[in-house]
């Protein structure tokens, strides 16, 4: 009986003892400042984007079912309307970009100024969109240890890897001066389970994974981060 009591006391002491040489991981919520220094209630026009993957679209029949311009506009409009205080203004229906070259688009100051004046917008968003199905299947070299002699060999194995690649270049212009305020690029690759994955689902997988980064152009966001603290 005394032995049992002593053991219990020892366990109690162990429990009460501080953790020696300890390190603990903590999770912080860090703010992400908006990339554009805005008031928050500006009028924003979503101009058309250049569609980069036209040639790809012609090759891959599955991409022909996706109206990238319309889907992206709808997504962006919805996100900006829901998660910011920006006033989204409709661009004129007959608006045509002055060029199909991204660099030239960046320097089309007069065009952006005219669009800003006609819509009374503070900022204008445009850029380029690329969405394609990437087949990364192929032979890859892998290490192989022989169970017979225990030696390491290298062998070629066929790895099937298909996915959707989404690449957005954002251009943000000042609606009053037509000057470029910001240019940024976001990319996302989503691997699919097989070759027959749905392209629209793939597109939205890409977009939802980029949502935080896209919105962070206009409004503050938060992100989680892990850090270590010492406990003694």
């Amino acid at each position, binding site marked *: *009986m*005394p032995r049992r*009591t*002593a053991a219990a*006391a*020892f366990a*109690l*002491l162990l429990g*009460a*003892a*501080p953790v020696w040489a*300890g*390190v*603990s991981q*903590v999770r*912080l*919520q*860090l*703010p*992400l*400042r*908006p*990339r*554009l*220094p*805005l008031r928050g209630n*500006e009028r924003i026009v979503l101009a058309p984007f250049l569609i980069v993957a036209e040639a790809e679209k012609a090759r891959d029949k599955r991409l022909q079912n996706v109206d990238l311009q319309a889907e992206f506009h709808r997504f962006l409009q919805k996100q900006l309307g829901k998660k910011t205080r920006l006033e989204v203004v409709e661009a004129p229906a007959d608006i045509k970009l002055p060029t199909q070259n991204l660099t030239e688009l960046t320097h089309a100051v007069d065009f952006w100024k005219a669009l800003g004046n006609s819509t009374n917008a*503070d*900022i204008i968003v445009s850029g380029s969109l690329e969405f394609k199905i990437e087949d990364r299947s192929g032979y890859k070299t892998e290490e192989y240890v022989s169970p017979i002699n225990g030696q390491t060999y290298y062998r070629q194995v066929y790895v099937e890897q298909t996915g959707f690649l989404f690449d957005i270049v954002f251009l943000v212009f*000042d*609606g*009053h*001066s037509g*000057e470029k*305020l*910001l240019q940024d690029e976001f990319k996302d690759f989503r691997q699919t389970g097989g070759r027959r994955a749905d392209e629209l689902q793939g597109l939205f997988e890409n977009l939802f994974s980029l949502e935080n980064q896209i919105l962070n152009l206009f409004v503050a966001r938060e*992100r989680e*981060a*892990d*850090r*270590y*603290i*010492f*406990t*003694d």
Partner: protein
Amino acid sequence: MKSWTSTAVALLLLAGGCASYSNTENSSSQIAFGADVARKGLWREAAFRFEQAIAKDPKNARAHNNLAVALEASGEFARALTEYKKALELAPNDTYIRRNYARFAEFYTSYTRTTGKTAGAS
């Protein structure tokens, strides 16, 4: 025999308790207390405790690291950067401090990266 065991157990418990609380004034115990409240999300209190630990032992890299984390959690990023640098200066080979600093540097760079232009300013 039974009363002897009970007395021994009581003495052991008392000694354990005393050991835990006798050093409330040293930097280690401030760090321990600070870490405890930090894990509960009380970052202001934690920062105060880590500052106390540094006041008692200015060359304690662990205290500087913890203070940096507490300042980061409270949004005081410029001060956090200073504290991370001090911690790293005092313990350049500490893996945890190096990892924290690298992750903070990545965050802080993107946080301070703005265009510098404002819509309608020109």
